[in-house]
């Protein structure tokens, strides 16, 4: 197999909560950079990382950069493979319908939601990656 001609599968893993540290901001930067190249990008939210996708975050009183809006437009950056760990949501009392949409379908205008998966399904996706970048 000629690896150099193969499209790379790159996965960004988000495991930290969004505002106490800059890990999630950094993960977002990397997502947008990877998306700018011809690579198959997927993004997985695990552990406290699932908090990053929670609806209704308003950082106006913190005076920090309001980067959360970028998650609502991932599809515009052709980041469509966005996955969330089911157990991580459950452990944090978050319902699937409390997660932000990641953009709109180009053709139908319907909102696109992140896909909620089991550990096993996420493990399978990880097996398919050339590179996994964890934050």
């Amino acid at each position, binding site marked *: 197999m000629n690896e150099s001609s193969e499209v790379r599968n790159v996965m960004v893993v988000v495991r930290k*909560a*969004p*505002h*106490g*540290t800059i890990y999630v901001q950094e993960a977002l930067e990397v997502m947008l950079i990877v998306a700018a190249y011809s690579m198959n990008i997927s993004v997985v939210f695990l552990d*406290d990382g699932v*908090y990053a996708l*929670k*609806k*209704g*975050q*308003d*950082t*106006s*009183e*913190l005076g*920090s950069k309001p980067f959360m809006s970028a998650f609502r437009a991932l599809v515009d950056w052709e980041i469509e493979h966005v996955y969330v760990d089911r157990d991580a949501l459950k*452990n*944090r*009392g978050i319902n699937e319908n409390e997660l932000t949409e990641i953009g709109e379908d180009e053709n139908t205008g319907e909102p696109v939601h992140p896909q909620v998966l089991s550990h096993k399904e996420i493990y399978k996706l990880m097996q398919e990656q050339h590179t996994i970048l964890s934050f």
Partner: protein
Amino acid sequence: MGYLGSEDIVLLIEDGVYAAAAGTVKSGLIEKLLEQNEVYALQADIKARGLEQLIKKVKITDYEGFVDLIEQHTPQSWL
């Protein structure tokens, strides 16, 4: 939590406010703490994280309340 006296209060700030969320696997720990101690959480940090369902007895405070609590107690910051 094991280091708290019965007179001590707890103020949750930054990522600490996630502990005030209701219905998580850890909510029971804070509920137990609330049997003896007062627990506050900072409004701006709750709002930033989009937390809506909070443990009922947790009190919400703003930055001014934060300052008042520091005035009234001997703060010990656990980063």
